[in-house]
């Protein structure tokens, strides 16, 4: 148990999970996709995302002003400050972050097209503990037929 904690990558579950949950974030954002941990993006990415919800990665995700303000305030408090997320990734997409691409480099690119995955944004398709902030390799279960490259 202790060894597991010590050799866990720099992003152990305790650091990726927000300090304080915001039920409103779950309710509004997780209606369409996983409640991505705010720590996966820098504060400036969240500002842009919350400022453009009417054109949100191909969908209208607009919310009333009060809800936007409440979620934005929380995202600013919980945004990533770790070195890895200092730079805003292209299009403010977690999946285009350098660390994300590197972490998934050994996967067959076809994995993202798999029917049970659909897109790289669907963390929980393989990371069974994604909702709880557990992205450890031990908690990864690849869909049937998908394998890592040697």
């Amino acid at each position, binding site marked *: 148990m202790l060894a597991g904690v010590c050799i866990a990558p720099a992003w152990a579950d305790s650091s990726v999970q927000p300090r304080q949950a915001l*039920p409103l974030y779950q309710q509004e954002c997780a209606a*369409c996709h*996983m409640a991505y941990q705010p720590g996966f993006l820098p504060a400036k990415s969240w500002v842009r995302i919350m400022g453009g919800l*009417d054109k949100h990665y191909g*969908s*209208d995700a607009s*919310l*009333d002003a009060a809800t936007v303000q409440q979620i934005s305030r929380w995202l600013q408090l919980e945004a990533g400050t770790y070195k890895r997320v200092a730079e805003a990734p292209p299009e403010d997409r977690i999946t285009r972050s350098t660390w994300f691409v590197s972490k998934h480099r050994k996967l067959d690119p076809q994995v993202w097209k798999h029917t049970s995955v*659909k897109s790289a944004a*669907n963390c929980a398709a393989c990371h069974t503990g994604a909702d709880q902030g557990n992205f450890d390799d031990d908690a990864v279960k690849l869909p049937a037929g998908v394998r890592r490259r040697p």
Partner: protein
Amino acid sequence: MLNFIRKSMSLLLACAVFFGAQALAADTSPAQQLSQWSTAAGKPGSAAQGQVFFNSKQGGQWSCASCHGTPPTGDGKHASTGKAIKPLAPAFNPQVFTDSARVDKWFRRNCKDVLSRECSAAEKADVMAYLISLKL
């Protein structure tokens, strides 16, 4: 261990708050929605037209059915994220169309995704008539 207990407690609390916040306002019903939009349109909603509308791409990438499935009596699947969506037909999901703020929010956003504009009262009345017509 203490940390684990503390984390579990905060998770429990978060869940309690989460489900509390999910409680619906219950200020409308599918039948009320149908009657409201039919009145606004000046004609009763048509289930047959609603079905066609629901299943048609309106010049864009998606139809209503792209995410809600067809017929929308079982779980749908978000067309881009794959996230499960609860059944849209009221007979299969008693919570749906019971909170007017939620209904308005989703009609507004999803109509824009499908039609690049908001839906008319007549279109909403037709869709409501279609959804209500789907029985167990």
